């Protein structure tokens, strides 16, 4: 229930403004309507009461001026109208001991005031609903106001009015107009407010895009003054952040780049050493340093490369990586398609897949690589037999410089950039990378890339040669 209300609660500036506008206008309208109604009614009532009093007086006179009973009855009948029925009778319609209710008293006083002639006579006022009815059927006089005036000869003229005291009926047309007003206001306000809040929406969109874009465009500073100020503040902040990031990146790139000269010198110096064992150790350390620098520079490029996008046989790229690991004595298997054309940058893709396969070997001791076709996509899965990744860390591993085995010491080395680089490369290729823990233990990395549109020569299968050759290369 609470959730439902929260959902209905207007959330945008426009809808809130519309709500306020409609509420205010509705209140104004209803109050105005009520005030008008009250004023109009009191006026109408005064006029009606005066008319009634004059009517009663003149009818009474007319009846009093005739003397025989049938004549009086006829006159009473003739003078009756839809709203005021008149009868001449020997008895009073209103009981002498009728309850003097408040409205009866008010009515009596008003009639006396409006027709002073009546004050001199004996007359009774009562409402049928209040139990003032002396005789006859109560049903016929339901809701009616009754007035009985005694003539000088002791007979009575009985008036009954349905117009008086009838319940005021609801004027539906006024409500319909009010509703139409409300709908009209909502429509106009919606259009105007959407126009008025567009600069705010643009600001929000620009702020969202800021993190995604490599070089975001400055926000146009237009719209109302508050939005202009916000846009200007946003632009200033954007420039400041951009400058900060660029400076940091440049510093990092410069340091990484400049380290290459001393590393080259060290490589040359180590070559002059006579101690082979030491030289090999130094070479290995230098190799590790180079790898770190390469990874850092690659990360700073953010997957962006000057390389051209071309159709590439992804299977051959993965084969080269797998063969290299086999030569180093690692446990690697490759299964599936032997030809998998994708559109991409060969060096970037090579880097991404060697990071993923390298990780599987480093943390999972083995790598089982499968290349498969899934519709118009190529899906590559890399499975290992390590301990996998805790579900809480699944997203974190893509962040730069995050190494999950940090607590267990740095025995495996690395910069914590491998998966970050792989993910950004796959992203720039409009591909998907997904991590999942295998039921049997270990991690399964799935990379999905769209297949190149080119029809490969391997689509026509040769006699005895299945298009998907399966081979396992455990070493």
């Amino acid at each position, binding site marked *: 229930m609470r959730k439902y209300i929260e959902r209905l609660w207007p959330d945008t500036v426009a809808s809130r403004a519309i709500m306020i506008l409609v509420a205010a206008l509705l209140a104004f309208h209803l109050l105005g309507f009520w005030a008008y109604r009250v004023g109009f009614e009191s006026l109408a009532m005064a006029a009606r009461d005066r008319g009634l009093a004059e009517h009663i007086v003149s009818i009474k006179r007319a009846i009093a001026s005739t003397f025989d009973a049938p004549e009086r009855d006829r006159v009473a009948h003739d003078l009756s109208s839809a709203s005021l029925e008149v009868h001449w009778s020997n008895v009073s319609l209103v009981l002498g001991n009728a309850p003097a209710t408040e409205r009866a008293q008010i009515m009596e006083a008003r009639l006396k005031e409006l027709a002073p002639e009546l004050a001199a006579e004996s007359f009774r006022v009562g409402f049928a609903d209040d139990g003032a009815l002396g005789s006859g059927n109560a049903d016929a006089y339901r809701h009616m106001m009754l007035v009985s005036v005694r003539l000088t000869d002791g007979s009575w003229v009985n008036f009954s009015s349905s117009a008086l005291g009838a319940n005021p009926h609801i004027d539906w047309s006024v409500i319909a107009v009010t509703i139409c007003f409300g709908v009209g206001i909502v429509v106009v306000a919606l259009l105007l407010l959407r126009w008025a809040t567009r600069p705010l929406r643009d600001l929000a969109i620009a702020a969202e895009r800021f993190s995604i874009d490599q070089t975001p465009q400055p926000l146009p500073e237009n719209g109302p003054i508050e939005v202009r100020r916000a846009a200007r503040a946003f632009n200033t902040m954007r420039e400041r952040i951009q400058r900060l990031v660029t400076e940091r990146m440049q510093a990092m790139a410069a340091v990484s780049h400049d380290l290459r000269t001393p590393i080259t010198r060290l490589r040359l110096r180590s070559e002059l050493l006579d101690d082979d064992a030491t030289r090999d150790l130094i070479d290995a350390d230098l190799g590790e340093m180079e790898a770190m620098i390469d990874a850092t520079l690659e990360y700073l490029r953010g997957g962006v490369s000057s390389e051209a996008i071309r159709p590439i046989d992804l299977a051959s790229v993965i084969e080269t990586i797998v063969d290299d690991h086999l030569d180093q004595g690692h446990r690697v298997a490759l299964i599936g398609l032997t030809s998998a054309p994708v559109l991409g940058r060969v060096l970037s893709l090579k880097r991404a897949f060697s990071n993923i396969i390298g990780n599987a070997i480093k943390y999972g001791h083995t790598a089982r690589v499968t290349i498969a076709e899934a519709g118009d996509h190529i899906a590559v899965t890399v499975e290992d037999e390590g301990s996998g990744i805790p579900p809480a860390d699944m997203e974190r591993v893509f962040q730069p410089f995050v190494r999950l085995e940090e607590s267990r010491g740095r025995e495996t080395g690395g910069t914590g950039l491998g998966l970050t680089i792989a993910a950004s490369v796959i992203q720039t290729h409009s591909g998907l990378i997904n991590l999942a823990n295998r039921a049997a233990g270990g991690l399964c990395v799935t990379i999905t890339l769209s297949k190149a549109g080119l029809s490969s020569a391997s689509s*026509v299968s040769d006699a005895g040669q299945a298009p998907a050759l399966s081979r396992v290369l455990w070493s």
Partner: protein
Amino acid sequence: MGLFREAERKMDQDPIKTIAEDHGHILVVDDDPQIRLLVSRFLQRHGYQVTGAPDGRVMMDVVARTSFDLIVLDLMLPGRSGVELCRDVRMTSQVPIVMLTARSEESDRIIGLEGGADDYVTKPFSPRELLARIRAVLRRTRSRNATEIRRSEIVLFDGWSMDLRRRELQSPSGTLVDLSTGEFDLLVAFVEHANRVLSREALMQFAKARSSGDPFDRTIDVQISRLRRKLEAVTNGSQLIKTVRGSGYVFASDVRIREGQSA
């Protein structure tokens, strides 16, 4: 792996081989004095006569006065860049040039080769890699004959196209097929000697001549089977490399050469 490396090191120290291969005058152009000194000392150890130059001005002076067998040229130099210098040298001389490129970005490698360099080594390079490249380039220029294919060329066979400058292989459908350094060198050796039976030993020699310092420690048969697999995956098993029982392999295809658009 260690065993092969050991074997290679022994081969390097073979006195007869050293005399046969390692002689000549090399000019080393690098603005870092330490690197210049260390490269010079390293190359001198391997039997070369070495002259150093810190920038383009000195280099052009020295080149005008002395003749060299090879120039090792840094891409990033103060004043005129290595690419510009390379072009200037090429206008008057065919002396082999090995570029030292700073980044492993592809664009930098290509710039170096398009300037007319014969080969390149990316910094930070291992001295063994540099030595291997120098030897390979020298051997190629010294024994250049009709069948030898220069690096600035594109080779076509059976719909395949092989860019020797970029070290890229394109399948008949235009898809790039990735080859390891060893596999590419092996394919170059096959293409250079198409339709001729090559023994395992001969292939090993050819491939090694091009080998770029990456220890050539896989058996030649493994390399050939991997190369075959990659070629046949695309062409559905039609064999380009055929085994000749008892004597070696033959690359059965008509090879055409197209000059690359060299600057």
